[in-house]
């Protein structure tokens, strides 16, 4: 069950620094939410963990550096913010893409691969969708299918990049509840970027705030989500309401909004 740690993680694009020496330690089985304003480096951090962009510093999974893409894809699965849904692709084929790290580019579908896909589709209540085209599904169903592909990879780590962006409130809850259930069932380590601060407070164990490419705050939701922190890093004037399930962040009425 690998943990994640980064040491002095640095990313530059065209001479501009995007991440400045990020140090993170995420124990196995933890759910860490990463929040921050637009352009702070949240997605870049996930892509670095994923290995899809060049970076400096060191990233370890379970204490080891994993360079080979196929090996990394057996350790961590990714749910992108805007997944590319190929036209004409059926749900069963899309979910089977998740078996690529185990099967290789040239391998055939084994009974094990098909069995894993069936298990995942059943677990996510998608069994009746196997022969539907992914593009024909609603936003919520589609997001579950993307999650199913990630789960078919049978990894210990799940990276979620804004998994609720395109969803209504009900589907946001459905998806995050599902991730939470799966995490408990399978002991997954989850790293998610989220824009909605109340959702970030409600789900997960810890929150890290990233701003200007640096981790500037880390801790539990009540430690991190304060009016001062949010004002400082998001430039937002908010009120925080204490709730038994975690803090609720609501925009405060300002003189400008009143007028």
């Amino acid at each position, binding site marked *: 069950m690998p943990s994640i740690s980064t040491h002095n993680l640095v990313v530059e694009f065209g001479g501009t620094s995007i991440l400045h020496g990020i140090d993170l330690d995420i124990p196995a089985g933890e759910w860490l939410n990463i929040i921050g304003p637009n352009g702070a480096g949240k997605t870049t951090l996930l892509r670095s963990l994923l290995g899809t962009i060049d970076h400096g510093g060191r990233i370890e999974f379970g204490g080891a550096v994993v360079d080979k893409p196929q090996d990394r894809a057996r350790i961590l699965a990714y749910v*992108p913010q805007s997944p590319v849904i190929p036209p004409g*692709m059926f749900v069963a*084929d899309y979910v089977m893409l998740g078996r690529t*790290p185990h099967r290789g580019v040239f391998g055939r579908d084994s009974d094990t691969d098909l069995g894993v896909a069936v298990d995942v589709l059943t677990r996510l209540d998608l069994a009746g969708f196997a022969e539907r085209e992914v593009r024909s599904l609603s936003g919520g169903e589609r997001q579950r299918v993307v999650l199913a592909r990630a789960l078919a990879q049978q990894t210990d780590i799940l990276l979620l990049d804004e998994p609720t962006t395109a969803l209504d409130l009900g589907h946001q809850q459905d998806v995050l509840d599902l991730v939470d259930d799966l995490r408990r069932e399978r002991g997954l380590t989850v790293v998610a970027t989220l824009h909605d601060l109340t959702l970030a407070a409600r789900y997960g164990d810890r929150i890290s705030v990233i701003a200007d490419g640096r981790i500037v705050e880390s801790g539990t939701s009540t430690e991190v989500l304060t009016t001062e922190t949010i004002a400082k890093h998001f430039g937002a004037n908010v009120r925080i309401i204490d709730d038994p399930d975690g803090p609720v962040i609501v925009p405060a009425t300002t003189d400008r909004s009143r007028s």
Partner: protein
Amino acid sequence: MTIETARLQPGALAAGVGAVLVAVVAGLTIGPVGIAPKSVLFALLDALPGISVDSGLSGLHEAIVQEIRLPRVVLGLLVGATLSMSGAAYQGAFRNPLADPYLLGIAAGAGLGATVAITQNLGDGAGFGDPVPLAAFAGALLAVVMSYGAGHIGGRSTASLVLAGVAVASFLTACQTYVLQANSDAFREVYSWILGRIATSGWSEPVVMLPYFVLAVAVLLRYRRALDILAVGDEEAQALGINPRRVRIHVVIAASLGAAAAVSVSGLIGFVGIIVPHVVRLAFGASYRILIPLSILFGGAFMVLADLAARTLVEPAELPIGVVTAFLGAPFFVIVLRSTRREVW
């Protein structure tokens, strides 16, 4: 619960094989001299080693089948299959429905090579070892190398490679126009080459084409599942553990070699590389596990039938085959599009 994943269904395979058989029989039997299908079949069997069958054909008719029509039909199959599978592969590698085998400047490079060879009176464009197809082949490969070189400078993205192909094609077309302007007496011959033709002088063209066809088929069939993975984009493909750049370069090299060989023996035949794969997508599904093998079969059959139309519609003259492929293919594509109404891109 069980699930079905994309695979080539027996019915679809039978349809592809059937299309090839129909095209081959039509290509061998129809022409200025009509020959019965049964006689053609017996003549072909008779030509096989160890088999002796009386076809009932005269020596002249037997020669027409075996030395004129059969090489031409085989060349049509090879060229059509290669162009359509290369087109399908390019569309998958670049995730672009308008990609065709000429995307990286192959047409322009081949055109320049052929124009130089023709204007310098190096050959007449026919026969094994003739300088025109050799120059066309060299020009096509040069264009691909230039496109890859320029695309690499531009950041190695798919878009920069496609743009580099456009720039290289424009540059080589300009060179071709300049050479042609300086040798206007060769205009007709060059234009005839550009319009394409499936003409053979015996078996030399199919023999030249065969190794590149075999190479392209072997590589592209092997990579058909990888093309399905590339459909989710480079980042997600990489997150699934494959190296999209490596897959793309292998696919493009195989498809380009095949397309360059096809261009060198048949000139520039447009349309096939785009429309046949799209018709197959609409009719049988978008997975490259289905698309690549069926593009081979239907592309070959389509080219043989197009060549048949080219040589019979205005007998004794021949229409340029590029005109026929577009003239027949475009309405057919619209009919398939209307009847299936599927979204494939």
